């Protein structure tokens, strides 16, 4: 299986940016994914990157691989929707949740 590779566009070090990062890491670890690539891009420091990828909202999570590319916006607090945005089965997440 292709390695999970992600880009997260945030604007500055805000509470919302921090929330997105921790929500992402927590959700992935809960379903047993600890090994993935995550590139965090601050649009305030690097607006050209946002321009190149046509990013409008922050935070925006881009799943680069496995294809297809998919985007999720928000602080990623809704875990079910985050998993759908990553093409990961919510069933796996729910099972883990029940076991915990």
């Amino acid at each position, binding site marked *: 299986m292709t390695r999970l590779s992600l880009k997260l*566009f*945030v*604007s*500055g070090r805000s509470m*919302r940016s921090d*929330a*997105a990062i921790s*929500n992402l890491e927590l959700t992935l670890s809960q379903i047993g994914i600890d090994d993935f690539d995550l590139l965090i891009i601050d*649009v*305030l420091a690097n*607006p*050209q990157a*946002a*321009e190149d990828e*046509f*990013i*409008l*909202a*922050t*935070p*925006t999570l881009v799943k680069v691989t496995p294809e297809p*590319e*998919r*985007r*999720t*916006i*928000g*602080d*990623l*607090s*809704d*875990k079910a*929707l*985050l998993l*759908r*945005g990553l093409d990961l089965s919510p069933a796996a997440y729910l099972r883990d949740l029940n076991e915990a």
Partner: protein
Amino acid sequence: MNETSLNIVKKLATGIAGFDAISNGGIPKGRTTLLAGTAGSSKTVFAVQFLACGVMQKNDKCVFVTFEETPEDIRQNMLSFGWNIQQWEDQKLWSFVDASPKPADVSIVSGDYDLGALIARIEHAIKKIGATRVSIDSLGAIFSKFLDQHIVRSELLRISVALKKLGVTALMTAERNEEYGEIARHGIEEFVADNVIILRNVLEAESRRRTMEILKFRGTDHQKGEHPFSIVSDGGIVGVPLSTVLLNHRSSTIRVTSGIEKLDSMCGGGFFQDSIVLISGATGTGKTLMATSFISGATKEERSLFFAFEESRDQLFRNAEGWGVDFRTMEQQGLLKVVCAYPETTGLEEHLVNMKKVIDEFRPTRIAVDSLSALERGATPKSFREFVIGLTSYIKQVETVGVFTSVTPSLMGGTSITEAHISTVTDSIVLLRYVELFGEISRGIAVLKMRGSLHEKDIREYSIDQTGMHVGKPFRNITGILTGNPQYHQTPESTRFKEMFDDV
């Protein structure tokens, strides 16, 4: 620096023809102006033109933020107006922020978000090239892209604050549902309410009439009401300001010939230079002939322009030849330009814009328009009035004599609706009338009005032959010619008066 000088709102001349006059100098500088209009009201053209004029006229640098069309579409579409955006991008005068819909846009929303990336991109684009003009097209599209209206509203407010901080002059377009209703959808005016321009595209009498209205400019003045505009292929929007051009033209005492000697003396020495003459008459009374004679009366130093809306070029030249006027040679010598157009081909606003352009290029001293009545067909009274005012004031400004013809609906006497609209803006009126006497038709000519001069009060008989129009003797012993009901009196009036007094 005192406080008043801090608060004065400066204006940035947009460069959009006509608009700067309507807005008394342009849009408020360093501020955001809302440009609202229904679908098809040319918001995007206006938004692009605001930037294009900046680039072309002042080398201003510009950023265009697009939420609807892709930059590629805009580059392509605007080429037809003569705006080569691609070239400006290469010269670092123009930059796009592309927020148009992309296939990857179908994104999932998980939790709170803001439009920080969009704001960062706009700021980045502005700083990158040092832009002073920004257009955002359109706000409605942002609302349909992000469903959370509260977030979009607060983010739009952040955008306008950011734009203000950067000191740029910005236009934001917004959709309206109806031509006369709330300013814009989504209550956008609540946060960018300082300056509002409304573009309209109203269906009136089966034709579209485009107008622009400045609803408000906070802290600065502008003209009120709707002003018609047209969209032309080379240059985009051209506004037609009505109130600015009026009544500031000089008045001349120089006389020029009407081309008909006797008519000159009836007018007290000819038409005034920079005056508007209306020729009114029923069909076949010789209005086109008078327009032709007027053109033929030009000296070799003068240039004449003939706008024909009734007859084709060939017809016109053949007619002129029939009256002994050689249009062909005049045209070859560059003394004459004949412009033929069907009145119905475009709206009156566009006719006006085109006519002004020809006048500007050719710089004539004599202009004939044959006929105004043809232009009136299919136009609303309002747009016709605006057309006539626009044209007459322009002709007077360039110090030219204008001869307009107008058709009266009835053969005998009467006036037309056309005259009701334009008689007040014309300086002179010449009437051509049929006169029925003893079962025969003859024709009468009279000078009804000659602003700033005496004129003959007689109604004279005239005839038309292969050398043109010949004005003869005044009708005597006849009353009621103008009302179309002539009465012949056996004895001359002077004799009858004498008899009356003899009785006493």
